């Protein structure tokens, strides 16, 4: 069953600038879909329309079968939103801010439970203005989870978090996915998308330029082998040499190419210092896309 359906979405700002241009994707129930992209690619502009904050200039958006803008009252009780930049009154305590939010919801979790989920129980009586940036992000996540949402929107949820909190947040998101929650994530941490997302789309200048599972997106890009060849040796494979003399080989068949290279080195007694072989990662795919599009 489809939780989120976005078709040919275009968003135009008052000055006429098109932040989103004909974007389409769909997210199944219980799936995590990640929107990646450079800054200004249109991720947040897209997500805001899906959240129902704004009406699309063109195209259509359905969340749980409803129009999130026109049928806000139907959709909102079933979704949770963590904005990229959301605020709480600085002079409320964590507990008060959470209670206020709970008071606006149809069927909230207990406040203590929500704070425990994001490891903020021990900060309950602290004023929001005294929280660190990472703690504020976690409070925002607690509020997004407070209404026991079926669909969760996370706009850069781990920005500003220390590595441990980030891991904890990932674990929490994984647990939610197992419970059947649908998640639409935007992030500029590629490893976050690689670790969590079932499918993803990469945006650039308002368009989706690649979409699919992590491996589908990544497989379109070559693996790399790099090493420092001894001077004056003719290599058996096509390689780019950088200024330091380091050779990089790009291949779509990593195993075969690596085998040829190692067999050749063995036969000729050549040392390949600093040898490094890796499958294409999301990061490489991402950088290649950004370069191509630039």
């Amino acid at each position, binding site marked *: 069953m489809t939780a989120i359906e976005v078709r040919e979405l275009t968003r135009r700002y008052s000055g006429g600038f098109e932040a989103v241009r004909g974007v389409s994707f769909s997210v199944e129930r219980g799936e995590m879909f990640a929107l990646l992209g450079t800054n200004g690619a249109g991720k947040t502009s897209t997500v805001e329309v899906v*959240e*129902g*904050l704004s009406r699309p200039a063109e195209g259509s958006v359905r969340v749980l079968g409803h129009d999130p803008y026109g049928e*806000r*009252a139907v959709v*909102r*009780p079933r979704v949770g*939103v963590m*904005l990229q*930049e*959301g*605020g*709480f*009154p*600085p*002079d*409320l305590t964590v507990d*008060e*801010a959470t*209670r*206020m*939010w*709970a*008071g*606006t*919801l*149809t069927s909230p979790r207990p406040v203590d439970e929500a704070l425990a989920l994001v490891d903020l129980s021990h900060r309950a009586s602290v004023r929001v203005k005294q929280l660190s940036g990472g703690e504020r992000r976690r409070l*925002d996540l607690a*509020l997004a989870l407070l*209404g026991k949402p079926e669909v969760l*929107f996370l706009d850069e949820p781990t920005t500003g978090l220390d590595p441990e909190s980030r891991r904890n947040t990932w674990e929490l998101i994984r647990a939610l996915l197992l419970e059947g929650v649908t998640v639409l994530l935007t992030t500029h941490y590629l490893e976050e998308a690689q670790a969590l997302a079932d499918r993803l789309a990469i945006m650039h200048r308002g368009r989706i330029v690649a979409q699919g599972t992590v491996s589908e997106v990544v497989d379109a890009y070559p693996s790399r082998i790099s090493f420092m060849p001894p001077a004056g040796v003719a290599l058996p494979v096509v390689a780019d040499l950088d200024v330091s003399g380091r050779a990089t080989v790009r291949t779509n068949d990593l195993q075969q190419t690596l085998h040829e290279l190692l067999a050749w080195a063995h036969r000729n007694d050549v040392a390949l210092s600093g040898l490094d072989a890796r499958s294409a990662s999301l990061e490489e795919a991402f950088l290649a896309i950004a370069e191509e599009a630039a």
Partner: protein
Amino acid sequence: MRAVAVGQAELKLFWRNKTALFNSLVLPLLLIPVLVSIDADGTPLVVGLIGFALVMAVYYNLVTTFVARREELVLKRLRVGELTDPEILLGASLPSVAVALGQMALFVAIVGVITGVSVPSRPWFILLGVVGGIVVFALLAAVSSAFTRTVEMAQVTSLPVVMACILGSGMMFPLSVLPEGLQPVLRLLPLTPVLDLLRAGWQDGPVLRPVIVLAVWTVLGTYAVRRWFRWDPRR
């Protein structure tokens, strides 16, 4: 009511905001000795003080509240929740409205007792004036907040409405002392019909015209809020 959750939080913030607390609670108390020494007909004074509470406690306070919550990104956060837009604005308005009603009750009680203001013969016009005034000035505050970049700027951006209402609505001096050509225009200010209705609570006076003017302001205010109110910070 869901908006009450926001109202309760706003009330806590109000108690923690020293400036707002001083302006809303201490300043009116300082007025008491002045009021006590008055030896005149109390009714115009009561009417004027209610008008003053509408302009300062409702309008001015709410301009700063709306701007502060917008700049803190609180409005933006609330807007992705379950509350409707009117509920968010209502919730944020509750403490200011409560303070204004408290000020009015205090002023009326003190001045009423000292000068012997009679019990209003048509109290429903007073109720209509107070409720209508609160609605119109809360709407105007929301509109003004859209044109106010920072909390500090609220002192400037609220000035036109504050001055026009205090000077031009027959609060400080009767409109009849002003040039005749000006009077019909001043009757269209948002506070004038409120004061007319309040006066009508005690003595016979026209009510149809003020009710119409107040209704028009409500419609215009609602339209302007829908058209211009900003939920995101001005950047």
